[in-house]
């Protein structure tokens, strides 16, 4: 009966080829196989983001007057609201970390080689979309740090000649960040970005199932594990560990909510305003070189990074391509150094400016505190 139902569904959706590919798929063993797990972990955190995001939508109110209050309500009155929000925020960061690890490991293993070039392209677009989620989601709590970080972020495109002002205004929906910007960020965060991302994730995952895992050009393959069910079971175990760690961190370090920003009573930015950690390399770069140079520089690097599958001919021919490996290592070092430098600068700025402590919403009232 169940077999009948399954075969009907497979045939109705024309999934015969995909199912056969999944059954045939093997995961190769070599000294870098451990990095394969990070793509799956990214997928798990993405799923958590979708589920917790939809849950938060039941209570979040996207207006400048109500956004902060509704999050306070989620955190203090709705049962387990503080946990769902904390999981959503921590999982967003975990997702970005997994994506960076997944991308750099794929780069260094030359997994972008043909026939996986389209996978690499979808992966890069997904990275940009996830960064878009981070940027648009940052403003939604409507606290002071978020307000000023968004103000800075939406000013950056202005350095571009001709189109800069238009792009900046389009993102903000107004001359300056206000309620319109919040609504716009909300629409992007819960409408536009999820639709595109879910479709692209499906494409990305289907491609890995059809094309199999990439093996570094000169890696010594010592064996293979059948993907279904052996490797999948191992992967589920890794997901359970990842999920457990996420819950532990979300419970032990609940995500804070800063002071509300009041448009009617404008305040100065709190000391050390900064974006999320995955934008810190960009934030620091903008401090040391002119904005236009940063935009053009990163633009060219992004194009190069995206087109690597077509530029690295040696790797496509199954040979070592050390120049690309060095480039990847330099990129990792640059991100690490600039991020660390940015955090040191933020720390120094905060130490020099005595400010009020960031308000922590007490976990009281509501059923969850009982």
């Amino acid at each position, binding site marked *: 009966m169940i077999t009948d139902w399954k075969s009907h569904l497979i045939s109705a959706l024309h999934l015969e080829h995909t199912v056969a590919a999944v059954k045939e798929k093997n995961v190769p063993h070599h000294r870098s196989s451990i990095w394969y797990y990070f793509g799956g972990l990214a997928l798990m955190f993405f799923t958590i983001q979708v589920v917790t995001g939809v849950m938060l939508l039941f209570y979040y109110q996207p207006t400048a007057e109500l956004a902060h209050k509704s999050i306070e309500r989620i955190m203090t009155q709705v049962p387990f*609201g503080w946990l769902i929000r904390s999981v959503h925020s921590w999982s967003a960061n975990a997702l970005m970390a997994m994506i960076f690890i997944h991308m750099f490991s794929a780069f260094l293993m030359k997994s972008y080689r043909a026939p996986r070039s389209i996978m690499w392209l979808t992966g890069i677009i997904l990275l940009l979309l996830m960064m878009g989620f981070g940027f648009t989601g940052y403003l939604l709590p409507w606290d002071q740090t978020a307000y000023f970080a968004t103000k800075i972020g939406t000013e950056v495109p202005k350095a571009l000649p001709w189109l800069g002002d238009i792009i900046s205004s389009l993102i903000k929906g107004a001359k300056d960040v206000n309620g319109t910007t919040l609504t716009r960020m909300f629409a992007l965060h819960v409408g536009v970005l999820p639709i595109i991302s879910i479709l692209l994730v499906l494409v990305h995952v289907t491609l890995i199932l059809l094309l199999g895992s990439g093996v570094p050009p000169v890696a010594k393959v010592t064996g293979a*594990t059948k993907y279904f069910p052996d490797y999948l079971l191992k992967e589920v*175990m890794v997901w359970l560990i990842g999920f457990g760690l996420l819950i532990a961190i979300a419970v032990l370090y609940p995500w804070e909510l800063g002071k509300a920003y009041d448009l009617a009573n404008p305040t100065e930015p709190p000391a050390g305003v900064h974006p999320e950690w995955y934008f810190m390399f960009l934030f620091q770069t903008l401090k040391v070189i002119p904005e236009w140079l940063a935009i053009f520089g990163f633009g060219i690097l992004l194009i190069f990074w995206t087109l690597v599958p077509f530029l690295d001919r040696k790797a496509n021919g199954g040979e070592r391509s050390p120049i690309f490996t060095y480039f990847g290592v330099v990129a990792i070092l640059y991100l690490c150094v600039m991020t660390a430098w940015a955090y040191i600068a933020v720390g120094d700025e905060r130490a020099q400016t005595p400010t009020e402590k960031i308000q922590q919403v007490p976990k009281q009232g509501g059923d969850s505190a009982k």
Partner: protein
Amino acid sequence: MELIRKMPEKNTIKRRGILKGLVAGAAAVVTAPIVYVAARFLGYVSKGDSSNTSATVAFSDLTPDKPSKLIQINDEPIIVVREKDDQIRAFTATCTHLGCTVSYRPQVPDFYCKCHQGRYDVNGVNVPGTRPKLPLTELTVVDKGTDLIIQLTPKAKS
């Protein structure tokens, strides 16, 4: 295919069985609290502001031309009525049939629910033969001269 690790078949099946059992058990242990947390989170119903139990209405807001006014106390719609003898009365405005909001018809006079043509007399008692099977609740009104305090407590029966 040759690269797949060769292992005695019995051992493979045994190991896979244990692994499957472990993963299924762990997934079950994880799923139960997730379902509980999600159910509690999504099942939350706001109790409103329970400290808010009264509202003030100006006597001048109720005129012979417009002798009724809808107000809200703690998410509960209330209808305040000035009768022909200038007596002020307040009733819960939620129709006892299916929760629609009733309106006051001074020309009849009665309380009328436009959603399913339910009727209540001037004392809030449901009219037999119409949909509502229960009366509206009359609330306490305290006369403070130019203002009236409407309280969310039923009026004491005289």
